[in-house]
Every structure is written in C-alpha cells, then in structure tokens.
C-alpha cells in the first residue's frame, strides 16, 4: 500500500517538513517540562522559534582573532543535521535517501560536524573553548562504541546495515521487542543525553563557563551564526531522537497513524529528557566516562545476546 505513488509523495513531503520545521519544538517541550516540574511557568513551547527569528535579525559580532574557520562550525551543524534527517527514517517509512552502509555514514556525519565545531571553537583562541573541545571529543569518543554496537545489534537482527532497513523493516513489530532491544534503547538513551549535551552529562542551562562541555564551544557565536547553532542542536535532538525511537515504534495499519505514533513518541522522549533533567543533578565531570562505558557495556550485551 505504501508503494502507491501519491502516498509516497505525502510521506516525502511530511518527512521534509518535519526535518525543516519540527526540530525547535523539542527543546521547547523539554524546557516546558523542566519548568513545570520546578513549579515555574517557564518559556512557551515555541520559544526557540521566536529566538531564531530574533537572532536572524541581529548582526553577528566576530572576535578579531577569528578567521573564516569560525563560521564552519555553525554551517556544518545545520548542514549535517539536514543530511542526516534525510537518511534516518521517521517512523516506519523508509527515509528519502538510503543505501547499504548509510548507518556508518550517518554516524560520521556527526563526526564531521563535531570536527568542524571544534575547529571553529579553537579558532577563537579562548582557553575555555579549548577545554570544552577537549571534553567534547573525549566524551564523544566514549559514546561512539555504544552507538556502533547498537547498530551492529540491529543490523544482525534485520540483516541490513542501512538505517531504513534496520529501523523501518517491515517485519518488525512491537510484540517482538526483546532483551537486546531494551539494552540498545538504554544505551542509546544515554548516548542521546551525551550527544545533545543534556543532564547528567552536560548542563544546557549553566552560565558557568568552566563547567560547560558543548555550550562553551559556541560561546563566541552571535547573531545569525548563533541561530544556526541553536537550530542545528535542535535538529540533532530530532534526528537522533528518530534514530533511537525507530526500533520501538508500534506499527499500525494506517500510514497516518504511524506518523501520529512517531510524533507522540518524539514528544514522550522530550518529556523523558525533561524529567531526567528535573530529578537529578549533573554528574561530576570525571564520572561521565563511567556512564558512557555503561552504555557501551549495555549495547555490547545486546549484541552478544543475539548469538545466544
């Protein structure tokens, strides 16, 4: 049924619009949940859209020590977010771009973005940004095995190393969720928190430059480049969210209901992130590697279990 052309077009259209427009809702939702738990009213859910509109109208200020490299980070963040959004399936419909091995391509797209963000951070010559870069690279190197072992598990299970094959495979249903899936979900949720600089790994709200990890690398951006940074990080929340939710979305008999389920699950993920941030303190920096290693171990177990 899904091969019928008009429905394919509707899917493509929905996919494109979601990738372009929906992302800034997720941080808005997380912040709303945090505010409500803390007994505050909080900013509105659409706040990031307003912020972006404001920043686009603002002029950027560039430090005299920076060069054109400084702009690579913001540009790469958004570009990579969009390309990745075209590779990852939203729900159970295969993504617009898919090929064997795109999972690895997907993972290293974010590697490229991180590399360029680090370059632009180092371009400022600030000691904070250097520290933040060192932290970000250390932690992402530890998060990567968890991501890849998760990929390996799903690839073994579905017989495909394309994200569309792994996440949107027709034979997958909720009733077949097994121990390996639960382990992968656990591991990837930790990776999700780490990659998106959320508590307990990083604190997106802190104004204390010495404790920041990701935030400090973009401290010098302003105006439009900063709008790109903010939009790019919300894209990352969306794209990685679609990745970790993919294997667990229920499959219904109506294509539109699949979309509803996808958006519902995305909202639930945002609420979960908001609740985690509300009920626990951030880890001490030297404890973060232990958390990430726990994620690696969980996904390694998931992979081993498939051979049992």
């Amino acid at each position, binding site marked *: 049924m899904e091969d019928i052309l008009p429905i394919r077009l509707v899917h493509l259209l929905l996919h494109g619009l979601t990738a372009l427009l929906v992302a800034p809702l997720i941080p808005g939702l997380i912040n709303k949940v*945090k505010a409500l*738990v803390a*007994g505050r009213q909080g900013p509105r859910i659409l706040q990031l859209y307003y912020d972006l509109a404001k920043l686009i109208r603002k002029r950027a200020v560039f430090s005299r020590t920076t060069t054109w490299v400084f702009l690579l980070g913001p540009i790469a963040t958004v570009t990579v977010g969009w390309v990745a959004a075209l590779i990852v399936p939203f729900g159970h419909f295969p993504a617009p771009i898919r090929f064997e091995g795109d999972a690895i391509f997907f993972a290293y797209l974010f590697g490229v973005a991180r590399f360029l963000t680090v370059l632009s951070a180092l371009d400022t010559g600030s000691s904070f940004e250097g520290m933040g870069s060192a932290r970000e690279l250390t932690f992402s190197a530890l998060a990567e095995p968890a991501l890849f072992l998760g990929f390996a598990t799903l690839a073994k299970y579905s017989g495909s190393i394309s994200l569309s094959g792994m996440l949107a495979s027709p034979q997958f249903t909720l009733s077949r969720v097994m121990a390996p899936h639960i382990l992968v979900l656990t591991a990837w949720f930790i990776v999700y928190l780490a990659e998106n600089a959320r508590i307990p790994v990083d604190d997106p709200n802190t104004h204390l430059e010495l404790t920041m990890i990701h935030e400090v690398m973009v401290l010098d951006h302003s105006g439009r480049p900063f709008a790109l940074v903010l939009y790019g990080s919300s894209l990352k929340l969306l794209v990685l969210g679609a990745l970790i939710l993919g294997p667990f979305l229920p499959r219904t008999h109506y294509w539109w209901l699949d979309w509803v389920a996808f958006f519902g699950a995305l909202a639930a993920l945002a609420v979960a992130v908001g609740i985690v941030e509300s009920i626990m*303190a951030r880890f001490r920096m*030297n404890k973060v590697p232990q958390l990430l290693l726990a994620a690696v171990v969980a996904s390694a177990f998931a992979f081993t279990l498939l051979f049992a």
Partner: protein
Amino acid sequence: MSQRRFTPLRNGQAMPLARLEELDIDAFRDEILQSVKEGQRLACLCATPDLRVFAVLAEDQGDRLWVGQTRLQEPCFPSITPQCPQAHLFEREMAEQFGIVPAGHPWLKPVRYHRSWGTRDAWGRTEAPVPGVTDFFQVGGDEVHEVSVGPVHAGVIEPGHFRFQCHGETVFHLEIALGYQHRGIERALIGGPHPLSLKHAETASGDSTIAHAWAYCRNLEGLAGVTVPPRSEWVRGVALELERAANHTGDLGAMAGDVGFLPTSSYCGRIRGDWLNLSAAVCGSRLGRDWLKPGGLRQDLEPELARELSPRLAQAWYDTNDALELLWGASSVLNRFEAAGLLDPEQARDIGLVGVAARACGIRRDSRVDHPFGPYGEHPVTISLAERGRVLSRGWVRWKELQESRRFLAEALDALADLPVDAKPAPLPALMPDALCISLVEGWRGEVLHLAITDGKGCFARYKIVDPSFHNWFGLALALRGEQISDFPLINKSFNLSYCGHDL
C-alpha cells in the same frame, strides 16, 4: 605569659588610645606571633597615615580581644607573614594604602589596585594602577595550561579575576585578583561620622547590610557611651537572622543550581524572596537598608507587626524545609557535594578562616557565641559545625544555621509581640576623643569587624572594615588545589564570598 603588652578589650567596648602601650616593632611582632601560636586569631591588622600600626587579636575561647599598637619610624618593617600566614593580605593592604613595605613578604602585590593614601605606595607608584595588571604565579612545564576567567563573567555576578594553573582538568593552583569593586569606603569614613557614614557602612557589602550597619552602630554607641534598650537589641537580632536566613536559602539554592538540580534551585530562588520580604515588611527594604541607626532603630518592629510576621515566618520556614529536603534526598546531589572542595582544617586555622567556611572545617568560631553582642548574650545560639571541610559541609552548616536562625526568630517575634515599643532614640552625644572601639558582628558569611579610631575632636581618624571575605578568599584558593576545574563554580558558590566586601 604572653599578652602582657597588648590590651584586653571586649567586643563593642571603647577605650582611650592612651591606655594602649606603644610597643616597638619587634615586641609588637613577637606578641602577635606568640599569641597566634597559642591559638588566637589575627582579626585585624591595619595602619594609619601617621605610620601607627594596630593589631587586633581575637581570643575566641575567652571572649576577649587584644589590641596592640606600634609606631613605625620608617615605612618598612619585617613581615609577619612568613611565620603567620593570616597577616598576608593585611600586610599587602598596608603596603598599598600607606606605602609601608613588609620586608620579606613572600608575595607582595597590591590588593585593590587603588592610588596610595599618601604620596606613593610600596612599589613607588603615585598613580592608580589598572586592576589585575600584575604578575601572577605560574607553574612551568609543557603540560600545564593556564585558564584565566573574568573579570567579566558569563553570569550576572560581581567582577573578579581568576587564574588557574591546570594540568588537564586538575587545578594545581588558583590565584585570585580582586579590586574591581573598590569604592574607597574606608577613606570616605575618615572625618566622620557624617550623615552618609551609615550608608557607607551598609554598602560595604550589600548582602550583609545588617551585619555591617550593626557593627558600625555598635562602634558609635561604644564611643558615645550609649546603651541600646534590650527591645531594640532583639529587633537587631531579628534583622541579622532574617538576613542570614535569606542568604543561606539563596546559597543552598544556588549550589543546587550549579550541579543542575533544578527543583531546589527554583524553589529557593523564590523562598529567598520570602525571607527578604519579611525584612521589607518591617523596614521597607528587602536588604534591610535604613533599618538600624546608631543608638537604636530607625524602623521599630511593633508588637502588632511581630504578631503578623509569626505565621509568615512559619510559612517561609515550611517552604525552605521542603525545598531542602529535596536537596538532601537526592543522591546525585550529595555525590557532587561530597566529592568537591576539600579544605584542610589545619590550613583553614593557619590562614584564619572565619564564618561558615571555618565552621564547615570543624573550627568552633562564631562571634555570636565567642564574643556575644546584642541579644545573643542572654539568648544564645548554638554553633553549627560540620567536620570535613567540603562543599557538603559548607552546605550542611548553612542548613543547621537556618534551623537555628528560625528558632531564634520565632523566639524573638514571640517576645517582641509582648514588649512595648521603645522611645525613639535620642541623637548620640559626641564621641569619645582619642579613643578606639572594635565591634564584631557575625554576619551570615562570617565575622564582620569594624575598628574605629577617633582623633582629638571625636571624629574618625581611621575606620577599618574587615569583611569575612577578606579572610576567606584565600581559603577558596586553597580549596581548589587538586580539584577538578569544572567543580570551581560549585566550590566558589559554597564559599559565596563578597567581592565588594573585600574591595571596599
């Protein structure tokens, strides 16, 4: 025994300068070194423009202060700091204010980067230097990197400059350069008291308005020979404890915020406002400005108002308790607090740490108990102690002090509800000429010391203010050694020292 040559004095008691023996510098030094060795504390060391140097030693177990003075023949004396680290900042201050060189001081640098009060400072400068432009301690080696923070910070806080010598994430050494908030308060007080003097004292550190105002008032009352009616003393106690409650609540909330624990952080932000509003209900100012005045109170706390405040106090306490139970119940928070900011009690004693930070190291030091003033003589408070000198200990001491403040406040409001209002205080008589008065007040941060010296006409010849931050900033630098640089904001918040109180 020692102490023969220094003169004993009680907190808030005035004394003619003639009763002070003028020691020669060697005897003066020996007295200080010997007394500190015996466990006393150098609470103040300051000079006057005519090269007299005064020292105040606090004997915390004996409710006594020992005052000594010496007159220097030339602006130079052998430094006390190598044997008594408590003197290090006082000596740097004298070098900057009056060009008195403490020969042999291990790290002689300006404190506040202002122009000398005389013709030149100890470095021969006649113009005001730029704050923070100076040599900093550096650790050599390829693997060491330096991080410099401030004076402009990412948050809305006071300006201060911090230099970290780091090995990866580990801090080897932190050096703190302040002075950006210098307003010249001590100089402005010379020739006083004039109409603005109380204002100057109140704004020495705005978050400790009551503590500084009270210390100032007690000096004037001591020098004028006036006793304050007991009811007014009760109200001053209420003012001080409300200030303590508001700041401790705010600090615990801010510490929660620094580890990203949102519920307590948001609740305490609001509840701090509730405490401040109790002050505002009495005197019209959330910070307690214009509440006290020499001789008594500017705004009394009438019996009806006391009855009205009691339920509001109970409610504020109920909310505070709730928010903090969340904090102490979160293992992720305790884990962060427990792991960071160790300050060795031995070092804390050596550098003369005061206040919450000292009590968190297990040092029994609280001027409300050691040198009782106002209502604390008849209605004592218990000292709140913790042992381990970590962030958790400093938080815990605040928590225990909050409980104690609340108990005191409830008792005071009950008593005030039945006491008739005092008559308005009469204007103070003239101050005792050629005299000296020292007053200690335990503000929420620690011991606030004011030292007033009058000239032949009964005007201030010298007015010295020692905010607790002046003693404690160096404690923060020591607490950072070997810690993670990412924990600096948390450790800093657990001390929560005043920049303007240091810079004056």
